[in-house]
């Protein structure tokens, strides 16, 4: 009984003394933190995706408070959140256009000739073995290196093809560097019409390996009339994102290979892999 009492008292006294020491040390060596940094961090999404170019949200928050970055530099934060941060810091929020990733390929398993491959299931490794399993040298390999790199689950691998869901994409650009074929570009979220092909080969060569390649027939260029909605680059047509075409252009141009697609229909699987 006595021993137990001594132990409890001794431990209690020791605890109290150490507590006081810790308290003094904490006061004496306190690190000055701008509480605004914490305030900004609270208002950020906290995904730590690195899309802003800083080492996570805390680092970005610090940069914003120190004026090295704009609140709009966070690609993930919704406009309301950006406005909130700007209001909190008493600075003006910059208007920024939302950009989303686009995989410039429509060659799923039904569309491209595939060779047998049973090596590492990773695009960057697969590309080392005869350039990958897709018939097209420029096509999506479909092993999902981009999907792995996406912290927001915005990329789906569907039938051997990476498809970006624009509503989930926040524009952090992590996927852009992950693709060994450099297929992913950032486009304005408002643009609806895209060319889902990135092969610079001649039309006939592309058609041999892929049913839905852009063969640069220029039907879409003609359909846009005077407007320069579509730009021809060698044997490939590209959407002019400076002057994006209206959704009606897809219908009007009747793309013979269905490489010209509406993003919403492509994501929903509306093209079914078949070309006309």
């Amino acid at each position, binding site marked *: 009984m006595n021993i137990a009492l001594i132990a409890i008292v001794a431990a209690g006294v020791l605890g109290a003394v150490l507590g006081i020491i810790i308290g003094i040390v904490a006061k004496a060596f306190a690190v000055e933190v701008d509480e605004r940094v914490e305030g900004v961090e609270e208002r950020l999404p906290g995904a730590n995706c690195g899309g802003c170019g800083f080492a996570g949200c805390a680092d970005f928050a610090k940069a914003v408070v120190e004026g090295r970055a704009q609140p709009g530099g966070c690609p993930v934060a919704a406009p309301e959140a950006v406005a909130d941060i700007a209001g909190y810091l008493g600075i003006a929020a910059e208007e920024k256009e939302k950009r989303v990733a686009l995989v410039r390929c429509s060659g799923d398993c039904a569309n491209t000739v595939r*060779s*047998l491959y*049973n*090596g*590492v299931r*990773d695009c*960057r*490794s697969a590309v*080392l*073995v*005869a*350039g*990958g399993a897709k018939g097209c*040298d420029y096509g999506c390999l479909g092993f999902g290196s981009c999907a792995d790199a996406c912290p927001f689950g915005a990329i789906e691998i569907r039938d051997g093809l990476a498809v970006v869901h624009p509503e989930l994409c926040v524009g952090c650009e992590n996927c852009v560097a992950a693709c060994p074929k450099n297929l992913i570009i950032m486009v304005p979220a408002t643009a609806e019409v895209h060319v889902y092909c990135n092969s610079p*080969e001649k039309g006939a060569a592309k058609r041999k390996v892929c049913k839905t390649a852009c063969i640069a027939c220029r039907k879409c260029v003609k359909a846009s009339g005077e407007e320069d909605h579509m730009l021809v680059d060698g044997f490939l047509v590209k959407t002019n994102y400076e002057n994006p075409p209206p959704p009606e252009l897809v219908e009007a141009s009747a793309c013979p290979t269905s490489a010209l697609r509406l993003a919403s229909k492509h994501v929903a699987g509306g093209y079914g892999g078949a070309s006309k």
Partner: protein
Amino acid sequence: MSNQTRKFKGGVHPNDSKALSKDKPIQDAPLLESYKVIMHQNIGAPPELVVKKGDVVKKGDLLAKAGGFVSVPLHAPTSGTIKMIDKCPGPTGMSVPSIEITADGEDEWGAPFVPMSDWKNTEPKMLKQRVWDAGIVGMGGAGFPAHVKLSPPEGKTIDTLILNGAECEPYLTADHRLMLEQAEDVALGAAIIARILGLETAVIGVENNKPDAIQALEKVAGKYGVTVQGLPVNYPQGAEKQLIYAITGREVPIGKLPMDVHCVVQNVASAVAIADAVVKGRPSIERITTITGKSVVNPGNWRLRLGTPVEKALEFVGGVNEQPAKLLLGGPMMGIAQSSLGVTVMKNTSGILLISRDEVSQYSSDPCIRCGRCVEVCPMSILPATISQAVENKRFDWAEELNVMACIECGSCSYVCPSRRPLNQHFKRAKIEIQAELRKKK
């Protein structure tokens, strides 16, 4: 130099299947109607095109000149007209620029180099220039420009020249037949290279499974002051670092080159190409390739011109008995799988191999069971199992710490792995990522 043979650590003994073609004499391939010569056949800078569509060329004329010091020129395999400069399937699976020549059927030599029959009294510098002008690369497989290896930088001394006649890859017999049939040319090439390096002698290393080649070489070796050394049969005996160890007992440190241990290694086929360039004044426009495989009707060794499509090469051997499962350029251990028959013969195409269906199986890889067999067989004494885990977790920094850069991609680890893990592929990936990172830092 002692004649003691050393066995390097590790290695594997795959079924060599050389019996299919080792007794088949080298045959000259008939002239084809057209050749598609791949532009970039060497490690280093691509050569610069000097011809254009419609040009008429003679056999041996320059098609492209060297694009730098680590680069070699390219010559026409026959006389004819340049039909097209376009893309054709390359050995890595990607389409690569190539020059298509329509043969005129004359096969007439253009202005070849002046033969240097008096090479013994020719300046070594002139000989080296000839090796470069003739576009000779390492014909064992890597395609490294030969003249670069013969140019040790200031301060590096070379005391041993080794000719690589190990031919440890299963199935391949091209070097074997070459040493047997052209032993004199091999020895002559060795003597010329020795003169370029300022050496008196050279060693030709041959695996002991080719006793007839050793015998043939020994008959002529004395005349050219070279020696022949039998080597234990062990894959990868023909790898540069393993070969140097077997012959000299020196170990090339990680990240260093053979010249750091005072050695130069050249393939026997490169030596013959060098002898042809110097004594006959001929550029490197053909090579001996083993066309083999269980499903090939009549496997054999053929002297093929650069730009011969694999499709045509297979016609020379009578086609196939059954649908093969896989087409490889090179041997089964290090060869590269092809997806097209349109790929053409290059300076480093040592073999065209068709793997039949009963030799391969479809499998998926299982988790590592930590058995350590890969560690036992690794000739570079690295830890394949651990490195593969680092790569799977995208920890390339960790892989680098574990010396993945020392990997020679011989494939011994993948060969023995009971879980059939794609170890070699992981290491290739890691090496590329690490090099990309290094370039970024620069």
